[in-house]
């Protein structure tokens, strides 16, 4: 569909953005379906309804939609107010503005009050590429994870996002959803099972388990295929719920493979890698945890796919990181083997 008479069909503008981000369509469509089914859903955004697709919710439920304007802090606090009246509000904006700009509102008005507000941080990580660091969120998992009582979920694709949204209606407390730009390749089918707090095993490995969350599940699965084909027994654990962490699944993987590689589109400090390392160290299992992600730096400017390649967050990069840790001379296996 051309956006103006005489223009090439490939030309596009803001209002057709969603056609290019099929993964985000699940956000508004699922919420609108849930509202149709009688759930007390309200949805709002801060002048980004075409970027996150909530325009489609607005079309179906205009009376339950709120445009907050470019007032993210107000939006988060007002969502808490909406929730205090019995509604389940889902409010969405770029993860950088939600988790960083409105952090204190999330802590004080949403989490401390235990209200069922659902915060949707979209375009998380470095997926906004050359928009630059102001629009990147490589800190949000660490920040949100330290907010008491807040559940933190990072779905890997549209189907898992839909399933997670559906599951959230039965959750009494607040949730931070971390999603990408709606272009993540599909991992799950439409009826994928989803349980908050329950990690999903994609095969098990005796040499290595890759622990991935959100956008990094897909490249991790591709990397694991190659490693397994090469005789390196590799499992993948999808930790879609970063908090509360499925500690049993993480410790079982640590026990089984003795070596975990965490992969996240996030700083290696404080996010998934931090959570897994804390759990494994606390259990004293002796397994090694290596954290793969953004190494405590601000991203270069570049197209997202180029950045993923640069930071090793594509299948090649995850495979490379995995081979490095498996064949590392400093791992516990290597040290044990070197004992007299």
């Amino acid at each position, binding site marked *: 569909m051309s956006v103006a008479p005489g223009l090439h069909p490939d030309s596009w503008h803001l209002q057709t953005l969603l056609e290019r981000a099929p993964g985000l369509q699940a956000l508004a469509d699922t919420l609108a379906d849930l509202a149709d089914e009688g759930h007390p859903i309200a949805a709002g955004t801060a002048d980004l309804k075409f970027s996150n697709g909530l325009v489609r919710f607005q079309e179906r439920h205009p009376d339950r939609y709120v445009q907050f304007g470019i007032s993210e802090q*107000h939006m988060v*606090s*007002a*969502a808490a*107010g909406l929730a*205090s*009246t019995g509604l389940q509000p889902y409010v969405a904006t770029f993860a950088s503005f939600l988790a960083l700009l409105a952090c204190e509102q999330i802590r004080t008005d949403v989490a401390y009050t235990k209200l069922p507000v659902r915060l949707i941080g979209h375009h998380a990580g470095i997926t906004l590429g050359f928009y630059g660091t102001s629009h990147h969120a490589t800190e949000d998992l660490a920040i949100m994870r330290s907010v008491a009582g807040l559940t933190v979920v990072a779905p890997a694709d549209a189907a898992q996002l839909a399933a997670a949204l559906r599951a959230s209606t039965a959750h009494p407390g607040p949730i931070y959803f971390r999603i990408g730009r709606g272009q993540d390749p599909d991992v799950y089918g439409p009826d994928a099972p989803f349980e908050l707090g329950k990690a999903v095993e994609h095969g098990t490995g005796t040499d290595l388990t890759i622990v991935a969350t959100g956008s990094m599940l897909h490249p991790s699965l591709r990397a694991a295929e190659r490693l397994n084909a090469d005789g390196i027994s590799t499992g993948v654990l999808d930790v879609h719920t970063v908090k509360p962490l499925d500690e049993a699944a993480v410790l079982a993987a640590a026990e089984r493979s003795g070596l975990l590689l965490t992969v996240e589109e996030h700083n290696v400090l404080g996010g998934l890698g931090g959570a897994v390392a804390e759990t494994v160290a606390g259990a004293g299992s002796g397994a090694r945890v290596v954290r793969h992600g953004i190494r405590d730096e601000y991203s270069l400017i570049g197209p997202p796919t180029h950045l993923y390649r640069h930071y090793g967050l594509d299948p090649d990069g995850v495979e490379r990181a995995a081979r490095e840790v498996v064949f590392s001379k400093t791992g516990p296996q290597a040290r044990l083997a070197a004992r007299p």
Partner: protein
Amino acid sequence: MVDHIRTAPAADAELVELIRDRALFARLETVRLISIAKTGHYASGFSCAEILATLYYGVMNLRRGEPDWPDRDRFLFGKGHAAATLYPLLADWGFFDPAELDGYTRLGSPFGDHPDMTRVPGIDFSSGSLGHALSTGAGTAMGLRMQGRPSNVYVLLGDGELHEGQIWEAALGAAHHGVSNLVAIVDRNGQSLDGPVDSVTNLEPLTDKWRAFGWETHEVDGHDPAALLTLLRSIAADPGRTRPAVVIAHTVKGKGISYMERDFGWHLGWLAEPDERAAIEELRSNR
């Protein structure tokens, strides 16, 4: 720049008397609770005692002993540091046992310096971080309206609190959405921690600011129960309201204790036993 100034009809004389009595009760209880904590916000509570008493005894639609009644009017305390002045009124409404206040601020008590909705029945929203309550209040009012509830939402803001940028996000948003069941009251006592509010950062012309943001504006003497009662009731009763309303309530920080009225240092403090006794005497005699 005053939209409405009216005096209370004679029929309300008894109610005005009750409000005066409950405002004194709230001040005396504030003194008692602070004596337990050994630190507290006397002056902030004293400046809004008549506002709180007018709302809770003359304006808000509440049910005794039913703090969660869905159709109740809501009260959000932007200047949550004055919670010690509010708790006694909630106890008086039967939302919890007044004896629970004897443990004010002690380890594990539901009652802290700032109000917590998850611990104190009758607190409609937690507060403490200035600048949030107009947003949480606007969201509450919108949620009630979405569900067809008749409730009004009252938000009491400190004037120093208006320095927070989020207040003006909320002021824009509430006006844009025509949140007509929202009433903000500004406790314009003129003092914040470091001195006169307007010398810290000037707010004037304050009523013009709210009007420019699209709010219905009113000014009132915040220590005159009859004027407060008449004004707040007229706002609630106006069927043609299409906008949120703000009431600039002119008050005196520390109202009721002569030396507190003169010295902004009493934002936070504690009175040793003989001074506390004298303060109670002064409050009673001012009644």
